[in-house]
């Protein structure tokens, strides 16, 4: 049996639902880092989803949406607020997410970047080409993971991280990392995001703009005070800045 076949069967059983809880969990984690596994899962979902027609419709209790509304209302307000604020270099997050979905479907597909990772780079306006050396990236994992919008200004070499739906678990802190050709394969810390209620700005004066353009940025969840090892130890979300100028 080949590796490819193992991955395919793992994906198939994941979609079928017959994996044990620990295996399911492991597949969930792995698919964000393994495009081949992610693709295999999508393929199996497509193959088997026609079985969904066998599910009969059953009406849930009438007042159920009230509970859902209560839970999403706070986030909805934040989204509307973010959409109404025009911050230079930071696009409206909601639109960005949607645009990103299209972008991922069309230009790159799931293969080029890990599926659960969303990174996009745009200038201040969705409809204008990348300009003025300004880039924006979105960090968004699944719904249990935080989402950040990061803007990078290559002229001033400043990076600003703006939390969107991020919460910090007790005793934890977020740490920002960078990987460039200059600094080698190991992530280099850019410091902690100590107060995630507010945007954090970091100076990247020591980096060459050309290197920054191709840098990979990451945010990981670390113990209070930052990573004890100098390398990311917690769950990380990362991605390369990519220009998607039209």
């Amino acid at each position, binding site marked *: 049996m080949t590796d490819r076949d193992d991955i395919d069967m793992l994906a198939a059983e994941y979609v079928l639902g017959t994996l044990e809880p620990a295996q*399911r969990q492991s597949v969930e984690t792995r698919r964000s880092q393994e495009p081949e596994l992610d693709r295999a899962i999508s393929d199996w979902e497509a*193959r088997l989803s026609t079985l969904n027609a066998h599910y009969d419709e059953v009406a849930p209790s009438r007042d159920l949406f009230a509970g859902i509304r209560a839970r999403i209302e706070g986030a909805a307000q934040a989204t509307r607020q973010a959409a109404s604020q025009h911050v230079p270099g930071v696009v409206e997050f909601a639109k960005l997410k949607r645009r990103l979905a299209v972008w991922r479907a069309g230009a790159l597909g799931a293969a080029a970047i890990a599926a659960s990772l969303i990174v996009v780079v745009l200038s201040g306006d969705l409809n204008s080409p990348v300009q003025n050396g300004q880039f924006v990236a979105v960090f968004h994992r699944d719904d249990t993971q935080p989402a950040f919008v990061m803007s990078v200004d290559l002229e001033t070499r400043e990076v600003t991280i703006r939390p969107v739906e991020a919460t910090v678990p007790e005793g934890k802190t977020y740490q920002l990392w960078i990987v460039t050709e200059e600094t080698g394969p190991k992530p280099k810390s850019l410091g902690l995001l100590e107060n995630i209620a507010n945007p954090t700005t970091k100076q990247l004066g020591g980096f060459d703009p050309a290197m920054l353009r191709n840098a990979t940025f990451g945010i990981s969840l670390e113990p209070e005070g930052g990573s004890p090892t100098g390398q990311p130890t917690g769950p990380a979300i990362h991605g390369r800045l990519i220009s998607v100028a039209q």
Partner: protein
Amino acid sequence: MHVAVGMTSTRDLENLLRQSIEGNTDAFEQLYNATSAKLFGIVLRILRNRAESEDALQDIYVRIWQKAGDFEPGRASIITWMATIARNRAIDIVRRQRPEADIEDADIETLISPDSAFDQMAVADEMRQLDHCLNDLEDDRQQIVKMAYLEGWSRAELAERFAQPVGTIKTWLHRSLRQLKECLGT
């Protein structure tokens, strides 16, 4: 494939989702009204408990709200995308709850009863093709695939039901899935 859910077309649903991404909770409520019976049918069939299924359904719609920006129209239809989120959640719950087989024999007949439902609903081409491919499987194999997918049976539960070692069930599943893939040619 143009799938109608109730009175609402796929395009209507996509519009509602798009508005939801921008923070429109009323649009999301309409999306809920148009799709919740379908998703609830999935969750209830797997969890088999109404109160628990309603809790799960709420979680599922919160998740759909949060993940709305991830929907890729080119990859799957919106209802398939939503159904996948619902099924995944239900399977996660059921796997954690009943890692051991605990299904009474008396329940089984009512749970399986596949034929009537399967015959009625085989309308779309893709569906007919999958059913055709499923029909090529031996009866037992066909049944375990359907029980696993539609009702969330685990390997262990299937092993008990079919009086086979768990390893045999795994082998059956893998063979069946490979055969299905080959038959579907995708």
